């Protein structure tokens, strides 16, 4: 796949593939995946009893497997699937499999630019991660909460470093879990650890930990904060420095702590999914300011619009000045941007997408089983049977729509002005 700027941004619509056509005999076709540039549509297909492969734009990968699952496009346009041949698992990328095989592979992850593909491995009852085919040297009795750094250079997971027998509750309370970076565990154990995350240059890792059954805090590179809380959620590093923010619960209410200092007073019923703006100047989170009502707070200040069901998918604009999220009220979803709600009510909305110049917000939306995209609250004129997330052109003047209608996969480039009117 070519660079994003070099994608075909000429306005128009084309049928890329007829989904009924495939150059091999197929029994059934599984979920469709569209490539980021919109030039490909792919799906796992069954080619006979217990035999699977992947069909891309009507043409099948050569290898056949007992199973292929979790077919996903990497952000750089490579197509990956977890594949099993005679009981051994590998990753098949664009029809070429890793040389290495393992007992079981799951949970594929991509670096932000897609150049690194990783996944989790279970082999001979031991657990760890595999990056571009290569597994950690040390595998553990158990591992979970797997994470790949944004640049793909580092991996981290919560690992079990001490064997635990049946109902060994006292041993558990002494701590049998740690955090392993590239397979190397911290030299300290905790009762629990969750959601380890890297800082921007991967030199530091922070994770939620539980020191006993009651005291929760954050550990940074194995060292717990001095302050403990009755609950914490996932830590997040500032994009430019080693400062860490995390929601914390104090006396029954949630606030936000930065490096153990309270920066948002604990007066919320809930605070989570915090995000820094790209420069790190602003901090936003999903909050519950009043029991049963949900909204966003930016730098501790709560938006006026609230929702009764839920708020999800908080997204900063590239310039950090704008903020969008999804809100749900009385089972209907909508998009909220800068504290203003789109007029459309949908059965489902997908994560909002900003244009590179931060001027526009687009989202995939669904009503009564029909999908389309909407920009700044205005829907595209055509409905589809299925649709993928929209992508703006580099200058923000056009939008790429990837959709399926009448059994055909379409690639549409439309001027934004035509949609927003």
């Amino acid at each position, binding site marked *: 796949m070519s660079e994003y700027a070099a994608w075909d941004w000429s306005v128009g619509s084309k049928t890329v593939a007829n989904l009924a056509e495939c150059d091999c005999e197929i029994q059934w076709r599984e979920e469709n995946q569209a490539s980021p540039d919109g030039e490909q549509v792919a799906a796992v297909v069954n080619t006979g009893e217990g035999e699977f492969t992947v069909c891309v734009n009507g043409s099948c990968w050569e290898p056949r497997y007992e199973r292929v699952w979790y077919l996903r496009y990497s952000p750089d346009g490579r197509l990956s699937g977890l594949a099993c041949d005679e009981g051994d698992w590998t990753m098949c990328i664009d029809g070429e499999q890793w040389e290495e095989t393992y007992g079981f592979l799951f949970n594929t992850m991509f670096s932000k630019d897609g150049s690194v593909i990783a996944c989790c491995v279970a082999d001979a009852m031991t657990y760890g991660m595999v990056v571009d085919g290569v597994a950690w040297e040390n595998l553990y009795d158990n591992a979970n909460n797997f994470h790949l750094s944004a640049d793909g250079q580092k991996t981290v997971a919560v690992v079990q470093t001490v064997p635990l027998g049946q109902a060994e509750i006292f041993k558990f309370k002494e701590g049998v879990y740690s955090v392993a970076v590239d397979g190397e565990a911290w030299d300290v154990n905790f009762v629990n650890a969750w959601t380890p995350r890297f800082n921007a240059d991967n030199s530091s890792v922070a994770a939620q930990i539980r020191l006993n059954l009651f005291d929760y805090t954050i550990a940074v590179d194995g060292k717990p904060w001095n302050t403990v809380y009755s609950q914490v959620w996932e830590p997040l590093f500032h994009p430019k420095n080693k400062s860490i923010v995390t929601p914390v619960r104090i006396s029954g209410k949630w606030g936000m702590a930065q490096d153990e200092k309270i920066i948002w007073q604990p007066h919320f019923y809930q605070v989570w999914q915090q995000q820094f703006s790209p420069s790190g100047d602003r901090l936003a989170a999903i909050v519950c300011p009043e*029991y049963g009502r949900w909204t966003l707070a930016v730098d501790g200040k709560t938006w006026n619009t609230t929702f009764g069901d839920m708020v999800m998918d908080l997204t900063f604009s590239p310039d950090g000045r704008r903020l969008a999220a999804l809100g749900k009220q009385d089972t209907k979803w909508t998009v909220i941007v800068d504290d203003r709600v789109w007029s459309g009510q949908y059965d489902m909305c997908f994560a909002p997408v900003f244009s590179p110049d931060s001027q526009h917000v687009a989202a995939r939306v669904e009503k009564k089983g029909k999908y389309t995209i909407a920009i700044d609250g205005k829907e595209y004129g055509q409905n589809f049977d299925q649709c993928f997330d929209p992508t703006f052109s580099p200058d923000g003047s056009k939008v790429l729509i990837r959709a399926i209608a009448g059994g055909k996969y379409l690639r549409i480039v439309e001027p934004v002005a035509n949609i927003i009117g």
Partner: protein
Amino acid sequence: MEERVWIKDEGIEAGAAKLTPEKIEKTINAVFDNETGARLKAYVETCIHCGLCSDACHFFLSHDRDPRFSPVGKVKQTIWPMLKNKGKVSVEFMKQAVQVAQTECNLCRRCVQYCPFGIDIAYMMSLVRRICHKQEITPLYIQDTAHSHAATMNQMWVKDDEWIDALQWQEDEMRDEFPNARIPLEKEGAEIMYSVIGPEPKFRTQLIYQAAAIMNETGMDWTMPATPGWDNSDMAMYTGDSEMMGRLKRMHFDTAARLKVKKIVMGECGHAFRSVYDTGNRVLGWRMPPIPVIHALEFYWDLLNEGKLKVAKTFDEPVTFHDPCNVVRGRGLHEKAREVVRAFCPNFIEMIPNREHNYCCSAGGGVINCGPPFKNARVEGNRVKAEQLKATGVKVCIAPCHNCHGGLEDIIHTFELGIELKFLGEIIYEHMEKPNAV
């Protein structure tokens, strides 16, 4: 009155050995001062000790009306002295209190219907459990389950790959019967996320098979996650670890939200329903589940009424139906359940009492999860259930809840009732139209 038996449990004993009078006082008062309010005060002040709640409780009835097993008797042995003495109670008292609250009350809420003031004894027993959690005297086996939840986000120490493997294995199995069947993993935008409890991938994979068969044959657009968050169960709710309960439920709802499903359909489990529909969502700030949660009983009823589920043949043996507390008193699904049962089982015989007045299985509320040390007491404490089952004269009982199965199985065995237990999904799977089967 027969002598009271205080059972030895390793978790309780080891925790109690570390207790000091100061710690006891501090934890009790911390819970009362910071975590209770008008509700507890009203309950304590309103109760006139009339004992009308007694006849509601299967423990009381099964222990020949021993008042120590009555609902109000349980409060008398726990909350009242704690309040009266402002937390100054002995270690011995706490050991007995944890047995009462954690193993002699199923939090079944039958008694709340019998109290003229609607006093919720289960709420008070939950408070006692919370105090015991803070004192680390929770019984060993259920504490271990709470640890499993914390470490793996599921009830049975199921590792991330084992879950996926169980689903792929069931999918393969299904293809002998339904050649094109699928268990779609991680299907973003599906209508339904189907969630189950930890024991299903571990011991009861046939239930996943049957549910998947129903999904496939009724043409549902559904998915299951391939990540933690698949398990809807929650023993932390029953050990008083409400922080962990919140963590588990957040994971569950986050997973459904990530998959962009419209609703969560859950298997035949009662306690998990209580956690997802009532307690867990609320501890996080949601009045109602943020994504609608449909219990299997309601889901079957919907399918039947929409004409998607069709009866191919009936199950003609006489059957009875056990109403699980959490979906009947907790959600009112008893009539819908009966409509589905009657559609498949024409010889349906009610047990008496029934619907919201049904007796608990005595496994619920985490009691069965306290494990072997308490098994005999649990079974003896539910002789009335055995009598109630026996009186139906049937040989098949449908119990749409995992814990109920565990509890009823022990009762059936001990009292030699010779009754076979079934999940409703099992009967549906065996008797529905299967257009895609070979």
